């Protein structure tokens, strides 16, 4: 409730004239605090949801000892991990090894700067908000590669290479999928995109949503694309050699990225903070949790793909579909700029079904064995 009222006041204050004395700084301070609190709380919530939800799906209970329903488990984990010794391998590149978690973690928080929690309730209503998101989200990959390189461990290196490969390939379908949304909304500001969603864009851009969801999962390395830390292959991938607080940073980064991607998906496709009855921020949080739950669900069920299959999926499946999606959207905007959205919904769904059927028949992904 406190958050709610403060958010409302922020929404109010953001409409104040820009020459309001100290307005900018108050705004900055409040939203920085809100973002950090929001992101970290939601990260803890996500860790809890993932562990409990997965536990129940796997016919067990999940952590339930710390606090009511085990809600304090992330806190307990954090405390434990803070007390652990920070080990740096003897042959590690110490500076890179030290810097990597920070480089990886910071961008995940920075993404929230442009995510609206309510109408205009955001740190910075950038006109190029979505470009900012795309640009910032890729920086984590550098941190991951630094971690892989700096630990001088072959597992880490393999994991980091996989991470870079997947981020580089998946950036393209993700950006193209976003482009479709931008065309429909007519703006790059996330707040404007939300305001444009009289019906959620998941209905207008079903293919775009699917592509963005798959691409987003791959980019933040959620299962089934969790190749860079592939537990059964590379022990822990890029963070094999990390312990203590640095490991905690990576752990947080993983979930903060999941929160960020869920938030972006909720904003772009599910109507962001819009919704009846409940306050906007609550709608937003509920949607974020819903998206994340689907991620947990798929993680529980699906096996991991192989690296060449991952690449092939990006380049042969998602990339052409994203291009076609973009072209189809552009044509729709050009030809029927005033078409009723409810007519476009079934058309777009039909196009999605057709394209997916076609691509399923046409392309074989992955090539398997290599002669050595």
């Amino acid at each position: 409730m406190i958050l709610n009222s403060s958010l409302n006041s922020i929404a109010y204050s953001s409409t104040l004239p820009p020459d309001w004395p100290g307005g900018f700084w108050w705004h900055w301070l409040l939203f920085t605090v809100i973002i950090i609190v929001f992101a970290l709380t939601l990260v803890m919530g996500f860790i809890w949801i993932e562990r409990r939800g997965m536990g129940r799906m796997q016919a067990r209970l999940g952590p339930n000892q710390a606090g009511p329903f085990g809600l304090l488990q992330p806190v307990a984990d954090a405390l434990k991990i803070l007390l652990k010794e920070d080990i740096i391998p003897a042959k590690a590149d110490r500076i890179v090894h030290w810097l990597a978690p920070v480089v990886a973690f910071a961008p995940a928080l920075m993404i929230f700067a442009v995510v609206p929690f309510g109408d205009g309730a955001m740190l910075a209503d950038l006109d190029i908000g979505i470009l900012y998101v795309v640009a910032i989200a890729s920086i984590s990959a550098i941190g991951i590669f630094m971690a892989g390189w700096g630990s001088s461990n072959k597992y880490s290196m393999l994991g980091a290479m996989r991470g870079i490969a997947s981020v580089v390939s998946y950036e393209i379908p993700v950006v193209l999928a976003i482009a479709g949304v931008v065309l429909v909304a007519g703006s790059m500001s996330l707040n404007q995109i939300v305001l444009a969603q009289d019906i959620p864009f998941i209905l207008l851009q079903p293919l775009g949503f699917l592509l963005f969801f798959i691409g987003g999962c791959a980019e933040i390395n959620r299962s089934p694309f969790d190749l860079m830390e592939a537990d059964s292959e590379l022990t822990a991938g890029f963070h094999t050699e990390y312990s203590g607080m640095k490991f905690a940073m990576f752990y947080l980064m993983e979930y903060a990225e999941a929160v960020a991607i869920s938030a972006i998906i909720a904003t772009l496709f599910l109507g962001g903070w819009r919704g009846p009855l409940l306050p906007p921020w609550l709608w937003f949080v509920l949607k974020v949790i819903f998206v994340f739950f689907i991620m947990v669900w798929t993680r529980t069920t699906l096996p991991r793909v192989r690296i060449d299959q991952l690449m092939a999926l990006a380049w042969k499946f998602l990339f052409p579909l994203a291009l076609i999606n973009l072209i189809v959207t552009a044509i729709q905007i050009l030809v029927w700029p005033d078409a009723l959205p409810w007519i476009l919904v079934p058309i777009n769904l039909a196009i999605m079904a057709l394209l997916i059927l076609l691509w399923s028949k046409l392309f074989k992904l992955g090539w398997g064995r290599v002669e050595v």
Partner: protein
Amino acid sequence: MRDTRYARIMVLKTEPFILNIGPVHPSTHGVFRMRTTLDGEVVVDVEPVFGYLHRGIEKLAEERTYTGVIPLTDRLDYVASMSNNLAYCLAVEKLAGISVPERAEYLRVILAELQRIASHLIAVGAFLNDCGAFFTPFLYMFREREKIVDLFEMVSGQRLLYNYMRIGGFNQDVPDEFLPALDKLLAQMPRFIEEYERLLKENEILLARAKGVGILPKEVAINISASGPVLRASGVKWDIRKKDPYSIYDRFDFDIPTGEVGDCYDRYRVRVEEMRQSLRIINQARRQLPAGEVKSEVPHLVRPPAGEAYAHIEAPKGELGFHLVSDNSIAPYRCHIRAPSLLNLTALRDMAIGWKVADLIIIFGSIDIVMGEIDR
């Protein structure tokens, strides 16, 4: 000048590097080391290194009484102790010419087949886990295995190292509550196997990962002495229960599931089908189970006549054989164990070369080895 320098920069040259997978690694199923040479992600060479769990069971057996070896056999393939007990007892019975009462034979079949299901559940679960399905199939399989282990605990008193079979039968009859519980289990089991089938059998990602990966051709499989599901997945219809029936397996009606190409997916399928066939055998044995003694008259210290005997069974992992040599004393003169895991492991290098690291892991998982048996 300039051209050559650029050429040197432009040529992408990769250098193979050596990666030690194991001995402590989440998916090496124990303390096993694969010394792999990798070219990027591609496996160029694999050399299995083991021996970290070597306890010298064959040597220890030479200093114990024939009965005292049974607890040792538990520790071979520790996820299928009943089968090990059975193989060893059959070898001693063959050596000493001891007959086993009818009821004990039936109970042996029931327990050995339950053990096969339990072992295959672990094998399949671990294989799917290696494929990256985050512990879900593994935990489901463990739940089913738990039901079987409950029964074993009921009859033998322990959950892992049963030490239940004795030379000439069993040390004690099964308790009264065993058979009702078994019936309940038999009624439930098919439904759960169906459910696991639904979970991942047709999953596109699993098909992409496992189909056509790690193919072991028929001729190679025979040549490297593979046995059990690994051999059958390659299309060889070879099951000792059918081909050389020991105990009373000739009385039951069951099929030998075989694969077509011998890839990881076939090995997975063969194991699941074998679980169904085992259930069939147990159902038949349960119906025919006679009353009576469970142990024939066997002296406290068995002293077989001098000679040697080789008895083999179709253990869950493959052909488990005991080669016993007796010198008419109370301890075996030599006890050689033909471990299926060890010989199936020979296939790893053939199957894995040319595939990626991720494939190496699932190929290794599909062989289904237990280190206790390899190192002995």
